[in-house]
């Protein structure tokens, strides 16, 4: 009974925050609601007995991604006052499409027959994960690191002012 209540509370908070993210008129508030949604998702991981993923979720999504997003919003705040319309003219169709998609997904979920297995989680998941990452999944692991490096270099290149620009600014 307790897990059910906890699940209900967590999912309500997560979904509520998520809805606030996409509907709030102030983008900055949206970003903070995004943090709340991330916390909710992290709690879902805890419920799923994956504490490592939960902590990583907090570390990466809140510690890095959300802060970056908030930072970017602050940097570009001049242009988006909260009086401006925050949704485009196709929002109604988008909402309809999203709803239909949700319906389809829900129907799929309930019509599928999942081969669920009762079983305990591994005793030392982190060690296991480390071993798997460096044996079975070593190539994806390396590719992921290359991807991160590429993203790092790419975002620096895109984001920095070119020499000419900064010179003309002077």
């Amino acid at each position, binding site marked *: 009974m307790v897990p059910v209540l906890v699940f209900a509370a967590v999912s309500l908070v997560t979904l509520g925050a998520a809805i606030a993210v996409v509907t709030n008129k102030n983008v900055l508030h949206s970003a903070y609601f995004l943090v709340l949604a991330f916390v909710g998702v992290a709690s879902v991981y805890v419920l799923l007995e994956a504490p490592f993923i939960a902590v990583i979720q907090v570390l990466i999504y809140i510690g890095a991604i959300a802060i970056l997003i908030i930072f970017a919003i602050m940097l570009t705040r001049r242009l988006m006052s909260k009086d401006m319309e925050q949704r485009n003219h196709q929002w*109604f169709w988008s909402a309809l499409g999203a709803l239909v998609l949700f319906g389809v997904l829900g129907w799929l979920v309930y019509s599928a027959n999942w081969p669920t297995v009762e079983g305990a989680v591994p005793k030392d998941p982190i060690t296991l994960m480390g071993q798997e990452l460096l044996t079975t999944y070593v190539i994806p692991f390396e590719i992921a690191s290359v991807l991160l490096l590429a993203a790092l270099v790419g975002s620096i290149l895109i984001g920095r002012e070119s020499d000419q620009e900064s010179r003309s600014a002077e």
Partner: protein
Amino acid sequence: MKEFFFNITWIIPVFPFLAFLIIILFTQGNRKLSHSLSIGSMVLSWLVGWGVVFSAIGTPHLGEHPVHKSVPWFETGTAVFEIGYWIDPLMAIALFMVPFVCLMIFIYAVGYMGFGTEEVDPNYSRFFAYIALFATGMLGLVISENLLTLFMSWEIMGLCSYLLIGFWFEKNYDDPNKITPRQAGLKAFLVTKIGDLFLVLGILYMYSQAGTLSYADTLFNHEFLTHLAQTPALPIFGGWSAASAIALLIFGGSVGKSAQFPLHVWLPDAMEGPTPVSALIHAATMVSAGVFLVARIFPLLNIVVELDHHNPTMSIIAFIGAFTALFASIIALAQNDIKGVLAYSTISQLGYMIAALGIGAYVAATFHLITHAFFKALLFMGSGSVIIGCHHEQDMMELGGLRKKMPKTFWTFLAGGLALSGFPLITAGFWSKDEILAHAWEEFMHYGTASWPFFVWLLLTIAAFLTAFYTARQISLTFLGKPRGHHAEHAHETPNTMTWPLLILAFFAITLGWVGIPEEIVGHGNNWFHAFVGHEYASTPLSIPVMLLSSGLAIGGLGLGWLVYGRKPLEAGQMDPLQKGMERIRLGWLYTAMQNRFYFDEIYAAIFINGSIKLADIFYNFDYNWVINPIVNGVGAVTRGISNIFNQFDEKIVDALVNLTGLSGVKLADLGGITDLKVVDGFVNGIADVTGWIGEKIFRPIQTGKVQNYLLILLISMLAIIGIYLVY
């Protein structure tokens, strides 16, 4: 030795790929090192490639027992996808041609891109990186062992063709109607993507039937093919078999890549790229990939013919090919751009090959594929040499008299031109083209004049004549007579890096045909090409009337061309005698249409581009007017919304229909009023107006440029597909 080459076949595309990576990442600053890397990698590929080819030639019964190796590449779920290579005669023949022609073009590009002069291209190194990547794609396609890697290579080439056509992306013209390299690149990319869509569908269909994509289990598995030919296809294909559906879908891919009607529009504009690119991609290799693909799936076509006689698949392919051959050669008659003529001639020759495959002349098509690659690369590089020699003047009306000024270019161009027009006995083009015509003749004899092979044969024969004629026209206008422009007067011969490849290719353009001379002439068992490539398919018997006829057509076309253009050379500013002649017999409108490529670009623009913009407009309005009143406001808003809907319906749809009917009526009446001369122009304009107008009222969110709109459409289409899936 044989084993050695068969074991390292996989390395062929790796060399240029490494060259690409090194150039693009490290050596962009050093021109010499960059082109050395590019050419060096190609030399290695060429050496290994020919090693494989000659080992393959020395292997008996390679056709029945292809050599193939593969390793698991990745797996998703239970499906394992493999990567590997496949050595059979078709592959060997293509591998004979591709690395060699690529190498010649790479060397030629050194001169063309101005290495060592002050006109050197600013992106010189990048050019060599791109063509190396292109070579990777083509070689990968040739050696690939399954349809998935084939498709991957296919798309690498699509990307390269986009990058290379738009290589001079900063170029702009004063005339806004003239297509810029940037636009040409986009156009090529988008048009071929239409074909690629079909190819993907075909491959997916194949996968859904076979559960694997390797050649060994699909195309070369007779039991599976038989099964495929007896399985009915999806309902949308009518009562066809799955085999024919797959074949047609994959053929759709080659229609795009090989620029067949109706997706031919990109190739002429692709001439905006540097000339080595035109030679490399749009003559010798990439467009041949489409033909190669159809040759690859030939077992599938064969099984369709064997088990399902009434299936129109083959006739569709043959017709599209033959029609393209004729249609493109007609347009080529009236082109004044030296590369434009060659572009249409390429389309036309590809049509020949496709038609040949459509009538079952597998060997002949392969043969023509190889010979055409050599002489068309030669012609393109010759025209590039002319362009460089004449300071980027491409209009043949401004050229002339280059025979003395650029002798090497002239003689090699002449060799290529004769091969293209099929000059009897000595040129490669004669033997290969003759074999196609002979096969068509045989089919037509077999089925009689009321059948489709007759029309195929007729179209191809007329096209052969026209080919000879426009070749003579081009050579006469460019090289004979006196210079008609100041660029031509100051022409000079091009550097050795450009002329040497021309000489080498000219040699092949003449001699390559001798490997496939029919057995009736050289004695039994001496038609080496047929023996190697297709002895499981029936050989084409020599037909003396056809040979005489095609010789006559070639010589006649060349002679007529020379009579019109060469005997009395054109003066500067003089009108094209062909135009004059056609106007005299009241066919001036036809000439205009030919010059304007039968208005295909305009029609496509009116229907698809304007149409979708206009449709987008309407959706936009619809959207906007509807969504202003959110349904959240309650019943009042809902009712108002409904009335709005009716209102919109009245205003937009009903009015639109009324106007449409009215306007169409008016246009029809106009059309009736316009008599003989104005018919075609009026008709074309009428179609453009009507479709444009329909578009204006019906088609725009598709082209808004707004990413969210695209995403929404994506979502809706996905839901629609799910819906269809659920309903079925």
